[in-house]
């Protein structure tokens, strides 16, 4: 799952911080709680056993809790706690005696028992006039996030996100300035689009952290704020009292990403959106970007169109898509003749497809298109690789295609027990062709360097060519004609060697 993968990188970021910075982080109860949530399950268990116990614990005692099958998880848990400096050597200094980081222990206790939390969980404002509906927050968040994604895909007529979003996108190399001066999606940007929302937000926030460091912002402030956002409650208003100057600046940025909402009239209050509250939670019941956009679209439609037209469209959709219920949005069918049908209404899914498919027509619940040499080449020129395209098509394949592939594989296995073919969800012809199109792009391989020729005898040639191949700079040689080619970097070395050796004679 990509989400766990990205959580791991948040952990990695935390582990890379110097111990002093980590201890300052642990002063905030909300941050401790968030870090606790990101730890492996076994580590959570160990921390719970130690948090209310002041005295040292023997590592062997912890080990006894774990069955022999679980040694790997045990080592992982201990390693992750040690690298975060949550586990430290015992006070007595004896080997194998450990204790919990005292700063972390006291903050985490406060977080659990509700002691002095120093506003690290935000200041709730309780007043009738401040209530904002959850639907409105969801729509706001989806709208902001959608704007960023749409801009990346390059949908025409979309709003351009604010300047600091653009800065972040270029800084994180998700987009880069093309030769014409416009921002263009990169290889990483395409991979980014294929992840789920939670992973996407974390990617951006981690980049934000890296950028914050170069802007002389204190990483502790930034992290505390991010983790605090994760602990806030949806639909409540929070006051910015108690936030540091850095955090107030961040509040503006987070608003641009759609993580928090502020009323234009009152910048002193902010409302976390669902994008923020799901940051450190394990529950994956959040809607995907395309899902969120669908609901936004539906709302928009029902307002614009009159009721009868909407009803008719719905009926039609029910008839056409009678069998397509419970099918993930964007499920696609790819035929051996390179024609592609995608059951999607979301403009974002369609925009992503249009990066490498020549789209032809759009219907109420699907789009049709064709994979052509030109469409694939356009994508390849933009830095998207053939493997990425194939992976995207495979993960979005319609369940029907998967079933067909399974049936085919069963038949094959019946005929030949030793058949080692894997499951082929996509037509192999199309997969191979996409790969061939990529190969076709670089029909020639060129190296800069120098051609050595005009040797007096074979000995001279042999001496230099063996030296060049020994130091690994020989790219081509022809023994009969006594010529060889060395790379640009190796040339100086070969010439030096030649001067030394040939002068001696």
């Amino acid at each position: 799952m990509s989400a766990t993968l990205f959580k791991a990188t948040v952990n990695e970021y935390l582990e890379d911080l110097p111990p002093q910075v980590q201890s300052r982080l642990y002063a905030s109860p909300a941050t401790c709680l968030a870090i606790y949530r990101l730890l492996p399950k076994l580590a959570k268990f160990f921390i719970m056993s130690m948090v209310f116990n002041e005295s040292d614990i023997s590592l062997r005692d912890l080990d006894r809790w774990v069955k022999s099958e679980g040694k790997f998880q045990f080592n992982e848990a201990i390693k992750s706690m040690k690298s975060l400096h949550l586990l430290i050597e015992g006070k007595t200094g004896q080997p194998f005696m450990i204790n919990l980081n005292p700063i972390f222990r006291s903050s985490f206790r406060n977080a659990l028992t509700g002691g002095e939390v120093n506003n690290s969980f935000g200041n709730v404002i309780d007043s009738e006039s401040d209530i904002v509906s959850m639907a409105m927050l969801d729509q706001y968040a989806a709208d902001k996030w959608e704007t960023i994604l749409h801009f990346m895909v390059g949908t025409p007529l979309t709003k351009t996100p604010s300047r600091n979003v653009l800065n972040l996108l270029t800084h994180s190399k998700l987009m880069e300035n093309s030769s014409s001066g416009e921002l263009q999606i990169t290889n990483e940007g395409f991979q980014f689009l294929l992840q789920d929302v939670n992973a996407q937000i974390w990617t951006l926030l981690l980049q934000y952290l890296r950028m914050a460091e170069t802007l002389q912002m204190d990483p502790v402030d930034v992290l505390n704020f991010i983790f605090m956002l994760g602990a806030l409650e949806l639909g409540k208003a929070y006051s910015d009292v108690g936030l540091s100057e850095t955090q107030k600046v961040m509040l503006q940025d987070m608003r641009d990403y759609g993580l928090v909402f502020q009323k234009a009239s009152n910048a002193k209050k902010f409302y976390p959106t669902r994008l923020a509250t799901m940051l450190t939670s394990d529950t994956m019941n959040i809607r995907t970007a395309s899902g969120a956009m669908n609901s936004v679209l539906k709302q928009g439609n029902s307002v614009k169109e009159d009721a009868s037209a909407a009803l008719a469209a719905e009926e039609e959709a029910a008839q056409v898509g009678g069998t397509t219920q419970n099918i993930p949005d964007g499920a696609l069918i790819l035929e051996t003749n390179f024609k592609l049908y995608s059951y999607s209404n979301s403009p974002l899914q369609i925009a992503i497809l249009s990066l490498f498919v020549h789209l032809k027509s759009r219907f109420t619940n699907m789009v049709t298109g064709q994979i052509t040499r030109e469409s694939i080449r356009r994508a390849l020129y933009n830095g998207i690789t053939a493997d990425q395209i194939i992976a995207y098509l495979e993960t979005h394949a319609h369940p029907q295609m998967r079933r067909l592939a399974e049936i085919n594989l069963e038949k094959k296995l019946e005929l030949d027990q030793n058949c080692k073919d894997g499951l082929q969800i996509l037509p192999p012809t199309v997969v191979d062709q996409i790969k061939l199109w990529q190969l076709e792009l670089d029909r020639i391989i060129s190296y800069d360097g120098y051609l050595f020729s005009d040797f007096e005898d074979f000995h001279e040639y042999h001496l230099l060519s063996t030296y060049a191949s020994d130091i690994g700079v020989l790219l081509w040689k022809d023994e009969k004609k006594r010529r060889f080619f060395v790379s640009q970097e190796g040339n100086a070395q070969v010439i030096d060697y030649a001067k030394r050796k040939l002068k001696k004679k």
Partner: protein
Amino acid sequence: MPRARKGALVQCDPSIKALIVQIDANRNDIILEELDDTHLLIDPTKVDFIKTELNRLLSQNIYDPLDEEDNP
């Protein structure tokens, strides 16, 4: 005394080599030396030109299913 000559080594199929030779035939300023069936020494500043030229020549031989549909 041996001689070192600056250039770009190009590695390709014999068919592509033939195409490069053909491109060079009219201009004579690209290929510095023909090394063997799959290797050529060319002017390093002309590598990008060769690539675009090859793409143009190869695209002429590609069947595009969309052309047929657009002009039946």
